[in-house]
C-alpha cells in the first residue's frame, strides 16, 4: 500500500504532498525533512529503494525535483518506480514543459 507521495525539491521545500494515512501535521514536516535528507545523501548509481523505519522509500530524481513514494512491504518496488515515471509523463502531457 502506498503510504505517501511527495514531491520535494533539493532545498527541502515540499512542492506536493499527499498522505494516504493520517499523520499529524507537525510530524509531516519532520518526516519530509528526514526523507529528503536520506534521498539527497544517495549518489547517482545507488539503488532507488531505501529502507526507512518500517517502510520503504522509492525515489526518483528529475532535475532538481525528487519524487518520493513511501510504500509498505506488500508492494512491488519496481512497479512503483514505473508508476512514478508514468505520473511524471502524465503531468508532462497535461501541462507541457514540466
Amino acid at each position, binding site marked *: 500500500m502506498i503510504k505517501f507521495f511527495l514531491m520535494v525539491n533539493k532545498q527541502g521545500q*515540499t512542492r*506536493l*504532498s499527499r498522505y494516504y494515512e*493520517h499523520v499529524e*501535521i*507537525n510530524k*509531516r*514536516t519532520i518526516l519530509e525533512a528526514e526523507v529528503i535528507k536520506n534521498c539527497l545523501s544517495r*549518489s547517482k*548509481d*545507488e*539503488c*532507488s*529503494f*531505501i*529502507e526507512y523505519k518500517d517502510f520503504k522509500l522509492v525515489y526518483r530524481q528529475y532535475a532538481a525535483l525528487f519524487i518520493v513514494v513511501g510504500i509498505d512491504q506488500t508492494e*512491488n*518496488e*519496481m*512497479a512503483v*518506480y*514505473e*508508476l512514478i515515471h*508514468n505520473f511524471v509523463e502524465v503531468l508532462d502531457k497535461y501541462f507541457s514543459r514540466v
Partner: protein
Amino acid sequence: MPAPIRLRELIRTIRTARTQAEEREMIQKECAAIRSSFREEDNTYRCRNVAKLLYMHMLGYPAHFGQLECLKLIASQKFTDKRIGYLGAMLLLDERQDVHLLMTNCIKNDLNHSTQYVQGLALCTLGCMGSSEMCRDLAGEVEKLLKTSNSYLRKKAALCAVHVIRKVPELMEMFLPATKNLLNEKNHGVLHTSVVLLTEMCERSPDMLAHFRKVGQLSSSQLVPQLVRILKNLIMSGYSPEHDVSGISDPFLQVRILRLLRILGRNDDDSSEAMNDILAQVATNTETSKNVGNAILYETVLTIMDIKSESGLRVLAINILGRFLLNNDKNIRYVALTSLLKTVQTDHNAVQRHRSTIVDCLKDLDVSIKRRAMELSFALVNGNNVRGMMKELLYFLDSCEPEFKADCASGIFLAAEKYAPSKRWHIDTIMRVLTTAGSYVRDDAVPNLIQLITNSVEMHAYTVQRLYKAILGDYSQQPLVQVASWCIGEYGDLLVSGQCEEEEPIQVTEDEVLDILESVLISNMSASVTRGYALTAIMKLSTRFTCTVNRIKKIVSIYGSSIDVELQQRAVEYNALFKKYDHMRPALLERMPVMEKVTTNGPAEIVQTNGETETAVLETKPPPSGLQPTNQANDLLDLLGGSDITPVIPTAPTSKPASAGGELLDLLGDLNLTGSPVSAPAPQIAQPPFLLDGLISQPLFNDIAAGIPSITAYNKNGLKIDFTFERSNTNPSVTVITIQASNSTELDMTDFVFQAAVPKTFQLQLLSPSSSVIPAFNSGTITQVIKVLNPQKQQLRMRIKLTYNHKGSAMQDLAEVNNFPPQSWQ
C-alpha cells in the same frame, strides 16, 4: 475589500520568500485575509480562498478553520465549488473531526447526481476519508454504482468499495454479487480496480477466498481462468497505444493480476495448476531490457515462489533471479537479493548456486544492497562453505559501515557456533571479530564467548595467550577487554608458564600480567563492568600466581575506597577474603568447571530429580546490573517453568520473560552479599555475579536449616508417600517439600500422577517428578519437589490426589495432609 489573490499568485509570492520566517509571515498575512473573507460569507471567492488554504496546509501550516467552508462548498451547485470542496474535505477532514458527518447527506445526494463527474467526486471523497458510519449509510449507493455500465463510475465505485470493506468488513458480502461481472469489462481502468477489489476481499476473508477458488462452477465464470485469460490477452495482444509503457501493454494491470493469482494459488493445488502455464509464459516472453519488464518478472517470481508450483517453474524463477543479480542496474540487484532472501528457506540448494555473486555484492558501494547481501550470506552459510564465507564476512566486517557492524558481528558468532570446523578455528574467528569490531559486539556475546572458551579445554593456553597479546596493544574495546581479563584471571598460570602448544609461547612474567590488568582498571576508557572483570581477575590470580600476592593485596585494598560502588563492594569482599578467610581463598578461587551448553532463547529450566542436585541448562543473558536483591519470593517461584501445576493456584507473575536466569543470580547474589561463609556452594561466591557460573552440580537448596522432621503424608494400599522439608534461609516464607513415593506391593504402579492443592493463602508450585512408575517391593521411589509459599505463616495444610494404575485397574484417591511439623511453616 479587494478581491483575494489567486492561488497562483500566492504560490509565486511564497516562493520568493528567502527564509522560513519570511514565508511564515506571508502565510500568516494571507491566513488573516482568508479568515476575514470567510467571515463575510462571500460566495464568489470562497472556492479560491479554500484552494489557497489547502496549499498552505500542504506546506505544513494549520488550516482547520477551513473545514466548515469546505462543507459549504460541497453543498453549492457549482461544479468548481464542489471540486475544491471535496478536495478540501479529503485533505482536511477525517474521522477525528465531528464535522465530517455533516457531509453524509451531501455525498448521498451527489452520488445520485445526473453528472457523472459529480458522482465521481463523491465516490472519491467517500473512498478517501469515509468513516465507518458514513460507509454503512452509503454502501448501498456504492454497490448500485458498481453495477452501472458507465466505466468511469464503475472504476471509482470499485475503489470506494475497497475502502468501505476496509472500514466495515461485515459489508463485504454486499459487494459479492456485483463482482461477478466486473472482469468482463474491456476498460482497463475498470479491470484494474476490480482486481484491486478482489484482492482486498481475498486478503481480508478466508471465506471469500474459498468462494473465489471454488471448483464446480461454469469454467468461464471461475476466477482463476478469467484472470489467466485477461493476462494472456495482455501479453499476446499487439501494440495498443493507450496502454503501452515502454513496449509492454499495461504492466500495472499485469502486476496486479499476478499478485491476485498469488493470493489465490497459495496453498491451493488446483488453482496453482491452472496458473502454471501462464506463469511460464509470462516469465519467458517478457522483455527484460527495460525496467518495466523486470518489474513484471519480479512479480512473477514472487508468485511462483509462493504458490504450489511445479519444480521446473521454480527452477525457472531462481534462474531469473540469478540473471537479475548479474544485471548492472542496482535496483534490479536489490530486488533480486530481497527475493532470494525470501526463498532461501525453501529452495536452499538452488540459491547456493549463486553464492559467489551474492558474496560479490557484499563489496558493492550501495548501502541497501550491502545489507541485503549480508543477510543473505548469513542465511547461506553451511558446513561446507563456512571457511570461505567466513573469510569474506570478516573482510566485510572490517570495511563496512558502523550501522552494520553489530549485526554482522552477531551473525558471525552465530554462524561460527553452528558450523565451526574446529575449536581453534572458532576461537580464531572470535578473536578476529573482537579485535576488528570489538566495540560493536553486543553485550550478550561476552558470556557466550566465555562459556565457549571454557568448553574448549585444550585450547585454554592458546586462547589466553592470544587474548593477552591482543589487549597488550590496545585495551579500549570493552567486550574484548572483558573476555580477555576473564580468561587471564582463569588461566593466568598457563600464561606465565608458557605452555602453549599451538603457537610460539611467549614469555610473560606475573608482574607484566598484573601491569596490564591494572592499567585496565585505571584507564578512563574502561567501563564500570570492565573494571569489575579486571578486579575479579586480579583476585583470582592471587591463587594462581606465587610471587606477587602482596601486590595483589595492595591493589585490592586500594579499591576498597573507590567511588564506584560496584568496585568498592568487590574490593571490600576480597579484602575480607584475604584477612579473615584466607584459609578458604584457594577453594573459593578454584578453576571454573566446564559449563554446559546453553540455549540462547527460552527461559532457564532446571530439572530437579530429587531436590538435591540439578543439571542446569542456563540462560546466557546477564541481568541488567549485577546485584539486585529483587523480590525473593517471586523469583524463587518463577525460577522454574513448573510443568504440572494442576489443580494448584498458579504462581503469580509467570510471564517473566527470559530473565529467570537473572533471578537465579539474584538468589546467589543474596546468598553472597554478606560475604559470610556459606557451606556447600562455596567456589561460586567470589565470581562476578553476572556470569551464571558454577550453578551446575551444585546443590541449590541444600540450605543450613535442614533439621525439620519428615512426615508420612499418605499410607494406604501399599502406597506410601513421605514428605521431607527444607526451608530456604534466603526466604523464610518458602518451604520446599520433597515427596518420595514408594510401593510395597508386589506389582508396579504405573502412570503415577501426584496432584496437590493448598488453601488460598498459600501458593504452590509442583515440579516434574522423577518418573511415573513406582517399582514394586519398595525397590525404588518416585521423587517430586513441591514448593510452597506461605507469606502469612499459616499452618500448612494440603489436599492431595493420587492417580495410578495398579494390577491392571486405574486407582484414584484423595487425602488430606494435616500433620505438617510446625518447623515447616513457622
